[in-house]
């Protein structure tokens, strides 16, 4: 839920509650004031009747006035105090029951007590109260709507820098070398946020560059010692006096150096890809390229008794010639190394897609981890960088490399 929606919801709920309570209180207050007003009028009527009685010693004549009812009835004794009641009386003019406010009091005329009742219609006042309430509610609704509208417009405008920052960060990628540019706002909170983000992102970027530099430098520095060890091994195996066990030991050491050289080469390659050192692109006829690769791998597949199924259509892509070479090598090496004896590799190329699938009895691999560095799911001499490099190359060229699994078929596909 958006912050604004959440805020609006809470805001609306509370406002409506307050307004409803206020309206109810207002209605009661209004009614109270009205009744007090009518009561005062009734008291004036009472005083007039009493004045009339004391002056003329008789009850005043009942004059029929609209919305006012007067009646007298003899009673045994006086009432201690006058009494107000709300009653409904038949109004012949309107031909319906109407709400009246009535005062009841006793008055003595020539020793005889009379119960006097004076009632005044409150129908008009009810109408007024209702009118006032309607006006109030309409005003409240109008205010609510206007507030919501203004909030929406104003908040949208106020939050604009926030969303801009968010969009900038979204596009931010470590090692991209593009410095992020967070715009200056005139709102302190956003400026503070942008400043903090700016600092931490730039720090992350710097750390990342340092780390990358370190990896590249370490790999570079390893090349020379590796070259020395390998050359010494090449000299060592020339010795005709080596025993069989010495030869085997030498062979193991030689293989290990080979792996290390390969690993180092891969790390350097990754660093170079990340540093965008392969900017020269050419138009590559992928079909021809794959055909040459098939020839290169032919012996390898033969020795593993792998069946190759190929379906190649014409496809031209634009990328660095060395990188496409490396990418195909890595994917095909991967399909070869992780295959089973008498297994199968199928290669499908269309104008928009390259699919390389291999058989393996291993269960489905974790796609999230598959393309990370040094991911290994089996005991092989594989250094776990091949797929990572392939992925990096794809990313660099805007291709999508994905993995699928079905029925012991591990499929890697590239969408160009």
């Amino acid at each position, binding site marked *: 839920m958006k912050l604004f929606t959440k805020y609006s919801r809470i805001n609306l709920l509370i406002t409506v509650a307050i307004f409803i309570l206020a309206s109810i209180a207002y209605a009661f207050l209004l009614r109270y004031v009205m009744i007090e007003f009518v009561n005062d009028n009734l008291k004036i009527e009472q005083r007039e009747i009493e004045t009339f009685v004391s002056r003329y010693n008789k009850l005043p004549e009942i004059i029929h006035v609209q919305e006012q009812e007067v009646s007298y009835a003899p009673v045994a004794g006086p009432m201690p105090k006058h009494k107000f009641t709300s009653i409904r009386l038949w109004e012949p003019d309107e031909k319906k029951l109407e709400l009246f406010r009535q005062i009841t009091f006793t008055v003595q005329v020539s020793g005889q007590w009379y119960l006097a009742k004076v009632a005044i219609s409150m129908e008009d006042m009810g109408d007024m109260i209702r009118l006032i309430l309607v006006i109030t509610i309409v005003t409240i609704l109008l205010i609510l709507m206007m507030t919501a509208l203004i909030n929406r417009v104003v908040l949208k405008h106020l939050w604009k820098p926030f969303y801009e920052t968010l969009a900038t960060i979204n596009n931010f990628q470590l090692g991209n070398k593009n410095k992020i540019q967070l715009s200056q706002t005139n709102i302190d909170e956003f400026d503070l946020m942008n400043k903090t983000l700016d600092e931490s992102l730039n720090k992350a970027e710097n750390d990342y560059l340092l780390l990358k530099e370190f990896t590249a430098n370490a790999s570079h520095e390893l*090349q020379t010692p590796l070259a020395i060890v*390998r*050359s010494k091994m090449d000299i060592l195996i*020339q010795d005709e006096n080596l025993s069989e066990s010495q030869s085997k030991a030498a062979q193991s050491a030689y293989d290990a*150096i080979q792996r290390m050289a390969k690993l180092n080469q891969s790390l350097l390659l990754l660093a170079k890809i990340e540093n965008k050192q392969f900017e020269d692109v050419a138009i590559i006829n992928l079909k021809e390229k794959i055909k040459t690769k098939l020839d290169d791998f032919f012996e390898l597949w033969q*020795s593993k008794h792998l069946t190759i199924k190929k379906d190649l259509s014409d496809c031209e892509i634009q990328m660095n010639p060395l990188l496409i*070479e490396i990418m195909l090598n890595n994917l095909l*090496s991967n399909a070869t190394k992780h295959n089973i004896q008498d297994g199968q590799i199928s290669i499908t190329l269309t104008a928009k897609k390259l699919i390389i699938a291999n058989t393996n009895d291993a269960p489905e691999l974790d796609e999230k981890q598959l393309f990370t560095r040094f991911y290994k799911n089996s005991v092989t001499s594989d250094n776990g960088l091949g797929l990572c490099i392939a992925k990096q190359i794809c990313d660099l060229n805007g291709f999508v490399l994905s993995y699928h699994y079905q029925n012991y078929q591990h499929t890697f596909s590239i969408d160009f």
Partner: protein
Amino acid sequence: MKILIIEDEKALANSIATYLGNDNYVCELAPSFDVALEKTSLYDYACIILDITLPDGNGLEILKHLKKQNKTDGVLIISAKNSLDDKVQGLRTGADDYLSKPFHLPELAARVEAIIRRKSFSGQNIIEFDEISVDLDAKQVSVNNKNIDLTRKEYDLLIYFMANKNKVISKGAIAEHLWGDNMDIADNYDFIYAHIKNLRKKLLQADCPDYIQSVYGMGYKFGIPK
């Protein structure tokens, strides 16, 4: 023939000198930029193995000096950088070949031999080993003047062997030479065996002695059998 090894890493320079040194080649070492500059100015070499990153200077400068003096020494650059720029720049400045560290010594030997051959034989491009003769231009192999048919890989393998006579070449070095170092196949070299077997069979059929010997599963040696 003299070969100059310009390399500041003594251990590596010694390895190269030991491997390349034989009846034909005499290796000299130049461990620094200054020594290298002096030697290249004073003497002529059949091939100069040049490390670009020297502690007291850039190897490319030596190359430039050579070109300025119109020297025709063959130059093979070896570099730990393995960067395309270095390679392109080196070859543009006049180097004959480029090899990145860590390399296999047989590979280095093959490259050096190819450079020397290109520089010294102006006429026919033929290499010979006893009864085997290879015409590099025609890519034709003959034994006792009788042509034999080799596949592309067998032919490359034979040339590689002939550049490393009487040396044990590891399977890794052979694989890398024939398939390039981008192919990630380090776990299994069985597939090399088929090519070796076929080449050996063809040579034997042409009445060659059994030149190719397997060495304890470590690699192969091409030379006159004892």
